[in-house]
Structures are given as C-alpha cells and as structure tokens.
C-alpha cells in the first residue's frame, strides 16, 4: 500500500515536473484522497475544483458514507475521512486520530399539504417527534392547531417519509428528536438508521424529496439545499429557547456559533437543539478525521493546506451551495486544535 502510494506520488511529481517544464507553473502537484459523508460531497467537489485551479493539487473525494469513511481512515487507506457523526475521544485516541468540523448545514422538515406554503406551519420538537412516532396521525390534530393559531389545516392523514438508507441526515434528525422527546429517546433512539415507527423510506435526499412531492399530506426531512432546489414547503420550528425560527443561513450560523464548542473535547458535540435565541434546532456539521502522525506526511500536509484554504477562502463556495460558513470563533478554535494536536 505504502509503496503504491509512494509510486503514485512519484508519478504525480513527474507529471508536475512535466507540467512545470512545459508551462512554467511552479507548484508540485500532490493527489490527496478522502472518503466518507455524502452530506459534504457537493461542497467537497466544488472546493477540490477551485483548489486544484489555485494550487495544482488534486483532491479525490469519494462519497461512500460516513461509516465507510471511518473504516477506511482506520485502515489508513485514505488521507482523511469525513463523518456526519463525531467519533468518541477515546476511539480517536486509540487510533491516533483527530477530528474537526469543516462546514455547517441545516436539515429541514418539509411537507406536502394543499395550499400550504413554506414557513406557514410551525411546530415544536415534541410535536414533530410525535408525528414521526405515529402518535399524531392527522393534520387537524389539536396539538398541531395549538401551535398554529390563525391557520386552519385541512383534515388529512399524515404520511411520514424518512430516509431508507443509512445517512448523516437521519443521524442528526433523530438525534434532535431524541433530545426533545423522551418517548423517542426511549424507544427509537438515534443513529444513521433507526427502526422508524411509521411511514415510508425514500433513498437519499432525492428519494425523500420525490416521495414528499408525490404524497399528499406527507411530511419528511431533507437537507436545506434540497428543499430550496425542489421548492418543497418547509415548516418553522420552535427552538430550545422557545423562539419560532425559519430555516436559513443566519439561523444555521446562529446554531453553530452558540453551540458549546468550548467544553467539547475533540469537537465531540452534536449541534442539534443548540441554545441560541435565533438558532435553527436541526443544524448539522461534518467532521474531518485525520491521523495525528500520518504515514504519509506529505499528503497530510497538503490536506491541512486544503482545509485551511477551505475554512478561510472556500466558505463563499459553500454558501453558494446552501451550506453555512463556520463562524470565525469556531475557525480560530479549529486552527488552535491543529496547532496543538497535529504535528506538521
């Protein structure tokens, strides 16, 4: 493995030399490989294109799922892994790994009710969980009506749409439900896949969007970008402070900056139900996982350079894809973590 990596570097170096001699570009190109979360795949591909243009170094990111990403970084076959769920500090220590967040995104509940537009329906976490538990089965339920004064919802059966595949989106969504609803926490718990008490499963964000658009009276959850792109009406949520907030970049950023990063070792913190007054309660991030003393120091150095560039200059690209830039305080916290935990 090591020799093949070396030879690929040598090949890259030779290729770079050839480029240098013909075009006079000074950089020496390195290929770095990462794998994991599909949540960050769109922004990763955009970043890698922009970064390659700037430095000549290529980033090869495979969106194989967080679990597979963690498995591959443990085996050392890639330069960095990406996961939607943080690894526990003791696991990180055991493998000599470190982790840090790279970008923030929001997950929004979406509905298909005749005549209902985005931001019209307001729910709190407990009610949302009761719907996904199958306890509230009709849109004219008094509990929903109590949260929506002035809006009369038609009687109609609620059909729950969830993800059928294991995903970070489900991980964060179910994590939120188990934080706000004791019943959910006891019965279903949270994870990339759970035993959904009711409803149907769509494959991927696309599958859930498609099902919600097809099924009248349905409610599902997708990444914010998919709701915007497919113009599916989303609902507003009451957050931890009792404020009703609409999902948007500012609300996601508020969640990221008010989450308690200071007391989270190795950034081991799931941001759902963040305490900020304007925070969107289902805000998620993806962690990059890397070796503290990597087998391939040269690649690791390039990877750090890439992440530094992504955190400092790449966040506009992320915003264009409906992700949210990390707040400056968190960026400087991550850079301090790099300086203290990683040797490079």
């Amino acid at each position, binding site marked *: 493995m090591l020799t093949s990596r070396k030879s690929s570097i040598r090949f890259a170096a030779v290729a770079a030399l050839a480029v240098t001699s013909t075009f006079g570009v000074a950089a020496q190109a390195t290929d770095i490989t990462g794998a994991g979360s599909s949540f960050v795949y769109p922004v990763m591909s955009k970043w890698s294109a922009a970064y390659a243009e700037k430095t000549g170094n290529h980033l090869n990111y495979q969106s194989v799922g967080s679990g597979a990403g963690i498995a591959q970084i443990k085996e050392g076959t890639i330069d960095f892994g990406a996961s939607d769920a943080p690894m526990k500090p003791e696991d990180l220590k055991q493998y000599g790994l470190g982790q840090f967040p790279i970008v923030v995104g929001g997950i929004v509940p979406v509905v298909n009710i005749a005549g209902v537009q985005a931001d019209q329906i307001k729910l709190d976490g407990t009610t949302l969980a009761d719907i996904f538990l199958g306890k509230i089965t009709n849109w004219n339920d008094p509990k929903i009506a109590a949260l929506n004064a002035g809006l009369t919802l038609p009687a109609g059966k609620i*059909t729950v749409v969830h993800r059928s595949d294991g995903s970070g989106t489900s991980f964060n969504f179910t994590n939120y439900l188990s934080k706000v609803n004791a019943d959910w926490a006891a019965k*279903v718990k949270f994870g990339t*896949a759970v035993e959904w008490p009711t409803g149907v499963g769509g494959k991927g964000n696309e599958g859930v969007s498609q099902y919600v658009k097809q099924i009248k*009276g349905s409610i599902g959850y997708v990444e914010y970008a998919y709701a915007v792109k497919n113009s599916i009406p989303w609902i507003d949520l009451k957050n931890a402070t009792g404020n009703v907030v609409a999902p948007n970049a500012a609300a996601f950023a508020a969640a990221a900056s008010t989450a308690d990063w200071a007391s989270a070792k190795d950034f081991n913190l799931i941001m759902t139900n963040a305490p900020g007054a304007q925070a969107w309660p289902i805000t998620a991030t993806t962690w990059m996982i890397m070796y503290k003393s990597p087998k391939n120091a040269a690649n690791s150095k390039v990877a750090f350079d890439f992440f530094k560039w992504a955190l400092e200059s790449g966040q506009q690209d992320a915003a264009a894809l409906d992700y949210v830039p990390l707040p400056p305080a968190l960026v400087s916290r991550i850079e301090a973590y790099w300086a203290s935990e990683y040797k490079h």
Partner: protein
Amino acid sequence: MSASQAAVSAIDLEQRSKRDARAERLFRWLLKGCALLVLASLLGAAGATLWGGREAFSTFGWHFLVSTAWDPGNDVYGALVPVYGTVMTSLIALVIAVPISFGIALYLSEVAPAWLRTPVASAIELLAGIPSIIYGMWGLFIFAPFFADHIKPWLTSNLGNKPDDGKLSWIAQHVPFIGKLFGSDYPFGASILVAGIVLAIMIIPFISSVMREVFQTVPTRLKESAYALGSSTWEVSWDIVLPYTRSAVIGGVFLGLGRALGETMAVTFVLGNAMTLSASLLDPGTSIASTIANQFSEASGLQKSSLMALAFLLFVVTFIVLLIARLMLRRLASKEGR
C-alpha cells in the same frame, strides 16, 4: 528419397500426436478450471456471507428468521420482513410475467406473420438489456404516481377492507383474505404490488425469449399433424407445443424468478422501504436486496453482521427455489415416462 520422406512424416506424425495430447490435456484442465472457478466463487460467496453473518446468527439464533424487528437503535434485527418482501414481490412478478410471456412467445412462434417476428423478437431482447436503475426511475417518477392516482383507489374501494368511503364492497365481504390483500390507507403508489409489477416487466423479456427459442424447436410435423386432425391453434399450443418444451419453459421461468429475487435498484425505488409486515399488497415493504443496498454503507457491528446474514438468506431462498424447480422437472420427467 521416398523412404526418408516417409520416416520424416512418421516422426512428424508422432510429434504431432504428442503435441495434440498435450494440448488436449491443457484444454481439459482449462475447462475444468473454468467450471471449478464458478463452484469456488459460489462457495466462497456463500461461505463469506455466512461467516460475516455469524455474529447475527449466534446472537439471535432462529429468532432472526421469524422476527419482524429491524431496530439499529436497540441493536435488534430480524429477517422476516425483508424475506417476505422478496418472496412476495417475486411471486407477483411471476404470476403476471409467465402468462404474458407465454402469450408473447406463442404469438411470435405460431401466429405472427414472418415479417413481424424478427423485429418484435429483437425489441424484446433490447428490453432485456435496459439497466434496472432505469426501470426504477420510471417506476418512481411515472408508474407509482399513476398507480396511486388511477389504479389504487379502484382497488381499495372495490376489493379492499379499508375503502375511502367506508363502505365494504361485496367482494371484500364475501371472498376471504382479499379485503386484507387490497386494504390500505397509505395514499401513494410505492408498494409490494407496484414492485411486483415493475419486476414483471423486467423479467418478461427473459422468460419470453427463452420460451420463443424453445417453441421454435418443436418439430413442424407434430404441429402439422395436429392441425391436420382439426386442432385449433390453442389446442396445438397447449397439447403439442407446451408438453414438448415443458422442461425448457420451466427453466426459463426460473431464470426470470432468479432475477426477480435478486433485483435491487428498481425494487429499492418502488417498494417504499418500510420495515413493517403488512398483509396488504398495497402497503410498502422491503426486500433483502434493497435492505442491504440501503443500509450497508453506514452499518457497523451487529447491524453489518445482520446484513451479511440477510445476504446468506438470499442465497438460501434462491437455492430453495432452484431445488423446487429441479424437483418439479424430475417429477414431470418421470410422469412422462422419460
């Protein structure tokens, strides 16, 4: 001159026969190797899935086969829902596909004018070559909504036990089980029945092209004799063509069934992916292959082991189906006195 020539050719001949023998041996080994490769990969795959699933089998024992739970939150897994979904969708697919394929094959080999046979036959072969993801997309975007809007309401109100207006139809009241089979209050298309229909469309090309091929092997004099005795086309088909080709036809049917059992992508799109056991064909379900495809990438520990165990069960189900096919063929053969 001629003597030395004869000697040379004799040596030549001897060398050639030696060379031939060597080549023959090599060729035989090569053939054996090919056959053994299939056997080895079959055993390897079955063994690997069994080994990968050992943790699930040892944790849950035979409960794994009868449990409807699939609960990653509490780490409890059972195979009944996916196994039921796999068997049921494949069964529906067969019930629809076999008669239609029979009709297509008979039409093409007995009834259709000669100029039409080749184009239709190649169209069927083209249909067999369409990737399954395309059937899945078609099923999800076009067929499932159409089914939900136009076919499902009719089925639920005329046959089901949960009609929209609350009035049970005569059929639902008097025919046992049918109300349960077609009762559903899910307002959308993706379901076991839709998955079965999409699968049927996918396996019709396989079954019908095999049937057409074997129907063409029926000797013309047998058919002509029957026609001469005054048989109709139907009688010739049912009493001459079908008995003559029966074993090959069953082989073709099981080829299609094998494909239906293992089909993944198309089924994942149109089955609804719900881990719940429902008697209704109009409710969503899940299958072994689609459960694996959905969950494998994010699974770890006991969940991964349970998915491996599911894969092993798919082997077992397929094996049982092939075994039944063999037994049927043997019984038919002995009945015909062959």
